[in-house]
């Protein structure tokens, strides 16, 4: 049996009569059978081995790009900080010695502030002029790409807050759902909240009687629902409102939730 035929069989490429003949040979040739089985075992494990090789590649990348980078950037930062400190000290000395005849005790805070001219004299250096105008323009109208990227990052972050936010749960809430008769909208809302069906919980919340709906305790649960539905900003605003009102029994929990969202 030639080795290319064995390879094709292992690669599952033999078909029809070729395959039948090969498998008949396998039945009678135990040495061939053992060889094929050994190859098949190797091939079956190659996927996992490839994953491991990718892992080793990333470990190398990690060592090369991140560990070295941190030590290099620390060194760079140190030199940068030292340079800035030195330049500041020299500038201060030169300024005081040659350009600032006013005695220190007569200095007013306003005098030390730089004045900004409405129409500054054009700079002799065209590069400086271009850079300045670009800078000002960017301040007024940031590039659209930058805004879009910022917005996209914000959206992604909001999505992530919702993924990892832990909504408030306690035993008291369980007791609010106990009812012998038909459930009120309020009870439905609590039950849906506990069942983590936040979409329907919000629908149910909107059906609750207004007098109840605006209570800060219920608004606290609504804020949790909003965050879980990815409406993080609305949820965050509501937590802030509850804390500022100071009426809810969940103020500490609202602070905790807000803190979690801010820390993200």
């Amino acid at each position: 049996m030639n080795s290319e035929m064995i390879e094709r069989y292992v690669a599952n490429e033999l078909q029809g009569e070729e395959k039948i003949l090969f498998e008949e040979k396998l039945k009678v040739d135990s040495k061939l059978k053992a060889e094929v089985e050994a190859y098949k075992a190797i091939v079956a494990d190659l996927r996992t081995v490839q994953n491991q090789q990718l892992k080793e590649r990333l470990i190398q990348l990690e060592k090369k790009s991140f560990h070295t980078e941190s030590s290099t950037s620390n060194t760079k930062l140190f030199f940068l900080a030292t340079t800035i400190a030195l330049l500041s000290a020299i500038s201060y000395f030169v300024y005081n010695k040659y350009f600032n005849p006013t005695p220190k005790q007569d200095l007013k805070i306003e005098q030390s502030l730089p004045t900004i001219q409405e129409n500054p004299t054009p700079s002799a250096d065209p590069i400086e002029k271009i850079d300045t105008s670009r800078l000002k323009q960017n301040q007024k109208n940031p590039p659209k790409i930058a805004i879009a990227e910022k917005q996209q990052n914000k959206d992604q972050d909001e999505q992530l807050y919702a993924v990892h936010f832990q909504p408030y749960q306690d035993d008291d809430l369980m007791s609010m759902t106990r009812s012998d008769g038909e459930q009120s909208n309020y009870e439905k809302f609590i039950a849906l909240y506990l069942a983590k069906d936040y979409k329907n919980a919000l629908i149910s919340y909107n059906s609750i009687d207004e007098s109840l709906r605006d209570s800060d305790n219920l608004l606290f649960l609504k804020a949790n629902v909003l965050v879980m539905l990815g409406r993080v900003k609305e949820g965050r605003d509501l937590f802030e409102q509850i804390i500022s009102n100071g009426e809810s029994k969940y103020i500490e929990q609202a602070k905790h939730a807000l803190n979690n969202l801010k820390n993200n």
Partner: protein
Amino acid sequence: MEAFDQLYSLYRNDFIKAAKYRFNSSREDDIVDAWQDAVISFYYQIKSGKLQSLSCTIKSFLYLIGFRILIKTYNYNSKHEPFDSFASENENLKYAYDMELLPELDEKQTLLNKKIVELPEQSRRMIMLRYVDGKSIAEIKNEMNYQSENAISVNLSRTLKKLKELIEQARNI
């Protein structure tokens, strides 16, 4: 593979920051390890054709896999219930939540992993293309710029034989 490296580096620092906050008892080594596995899993899903499009951001998808790995590592299941409730709202995130994570290497695979690096780079690449990516001899010939299909076929047979011998030798020691 450049894109693979870039993807790893792009969100690596953000992931570490987020995971440190989320799993405040975690060591950075574990987080980096989880991030590596997440990127490899994602790569595998794309390469195998199991994942063909994304309706969420790549960042969210990768984060979810990475956090799943950390949850598994630290057995945090009960604390992270909201995880599945959110995942159920997005098809891709649900997929990331349910998909199979990278298996650990068993003894046999560890040995194969050690021995495979003893092969020439060309042979290694060839058997990966053939048996992992499922490419035909003709496709490998084009991809690796070989002159004849026969050369590929011979090389593959020899590589399999060599690997078998290396493994047997290691077992007999």
